[in-house]
């Protein structure tokens, strides 16, 4: 019900957006007008398909703040980062590390959450890592949107993940995977934990891939 | 009824280089559709070429030749205005012949 009404409202708005000229606003619209028209146009242009519903267009603070060709103001960025940091759920029983072999499989897997995927459950999702990062040296087909993660743990001096000296980097890495926006408001990296893309066990496997001295990433 | 081929035959010295694009699914029979049932094999098995009606090439293909196949070969002694005809036949018995003029 509720949603139907808003949809009608949006459709009306969209009509205005697309026939702006006819309805006589031939004078240049202001940036604020255009923002509103763009939003209405976007909402009116998409429809539900499979697991991908139109509510995916409802932006939270961070998404809205990072939707321009310029970064948000510092105070907005700080608010986004503070909210993100507060959202991080630390692993049950302080158990951070899983199996790097499983982590590699997840890192290779770029599937999940599209309208052609049947389930939105974490078990149906990959971690997408190689799309944007170099990780294991043997995989030459890697992206460069994110930094190389080859030797991630080694370069940060992680010799034993259980060693208290390793705690800061271990926790930072978990936080980055859970909600990347905690450390950069407009990071391009998905919020794997916060957005329920991956579950704790899957995140543990990725942690192992990056930090376990036995992982090929750190050889 | 299958779509026409694209055949280009260009003279280079005493021969003509022939480039052929064929419109065909080249379905291996190993893939499954959305419903999970196997898509039956459907692919070109035999390809032949004639220069002015005289056979110059025969070839046999498997299902691992790419969809919308490309073939390049050179016909000796072909001259401007000669006719190059290419024929394919698939595993369903469907066949198609197209002709191009050497330019």
């Amino acid at each position: 019900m509720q949603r139907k009404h808003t949809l009608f409202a949006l459709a009306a708005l969209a009509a205005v957006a697309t026939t702006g000229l006819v309805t006589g606003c031939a004078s240049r619209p202001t940036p604020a007008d255009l923002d509103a028209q763009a939003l209405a146009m976007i909402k009116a242009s998409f429809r539900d398909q499979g697991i991908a519903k139109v509510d995916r267009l409802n932006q939270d603070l961070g998404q809205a703040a990072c939707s321009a060709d310029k970064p948000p103001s510092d105070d907005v960025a700080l608010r986004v980062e503070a909210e993100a940091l507060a959202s991080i759920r630390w692993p049950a029983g302080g158990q951070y590390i899983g199996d790097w072999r499983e982590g590699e499989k997840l890192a290779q897997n770029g599937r999940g959450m599209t309208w052609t995927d049947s389930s939105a459950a974490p078990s149906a999702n990959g971690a997408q890592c190689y799309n944007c990062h170099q990780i294991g040296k043997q995989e030459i087909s890697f992206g460069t949107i994110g930094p190389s993660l080859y030797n991630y743990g080694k370069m940060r001096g992680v010799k034993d993940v259980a060693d208290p000296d390793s705690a800061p980097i271990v926790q930072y890495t978990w936080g980055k995977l859970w909600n990347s926006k905690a450390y950069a408001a407009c990071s391009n990296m998905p919020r794997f934990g916060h957005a329920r893309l991956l579950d704790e066990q899957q995140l543990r496997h990725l942690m192992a891939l990056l930090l376990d001295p036995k992982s090929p990433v750190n050889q | 009824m299958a779509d026409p081929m694209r055949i280009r035959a260009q003279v280079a010295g005493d021969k003509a280089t022939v480039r052929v694009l064929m419109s065909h699914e080249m379905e291996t029979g190993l893939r499954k559709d959305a419903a999970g049932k196997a898509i039956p094999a459907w692919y070109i098995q035999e390809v032949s070429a004639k220069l002015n009606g005289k056979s110059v090439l025969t070839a046999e293909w498997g299902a691992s030749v790419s969809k919308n196949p490309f073939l390049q070969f050179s016909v000796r002694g072909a001259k401007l205005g000669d006719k190059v005809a290419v024929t394919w036949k698939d595993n369903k018995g469907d066949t198609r012949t197209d002709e191009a003029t050497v330019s």
Partner: protein
Amino acid sequence: MLNRRKMLSHSAQVATLLAGVGLLPRGAQAAYNAPAFEIKTMAELAKSLGGGTPTESKDVALTGPDIAENGAVVPIGVSTTLPGVKKLLLLVEKNPSVLSAMFDVTDAVDANFSTRVKMGQSSNVYAVALMADGKVLFAQKEVKVTLGGCGG
């Protein structure tokens, strides 16, 4: 250059391939040689041995990319300058059916053909020349197939 052991192992592979394909001296078939295209695995091929030992030859040329951006379309060319070649073949070692294409060479065409093949994974690709005198010559190269796009 490949060392001798590698040479021999390649020769052996190609021998088993061709034996399975039934293309060694037993002569050429007129109709579509379905069995030749039904070979599923190297192991299957290994069962049926026979025929002359293929030798790697610089006179047979195989053109193809080192890396294929997409395994659905891999451009491959086979050619030889040797006289007396009867057939030119394209084989992809790790495909479900190893034989991709087989060209009869006549005096009316150059022994030089290019086409495009599907590759399920990175694999060795062989260009094989069957000579009139029964000799079997080949060239080979590895083509890496990369995972593209978003893997989705």
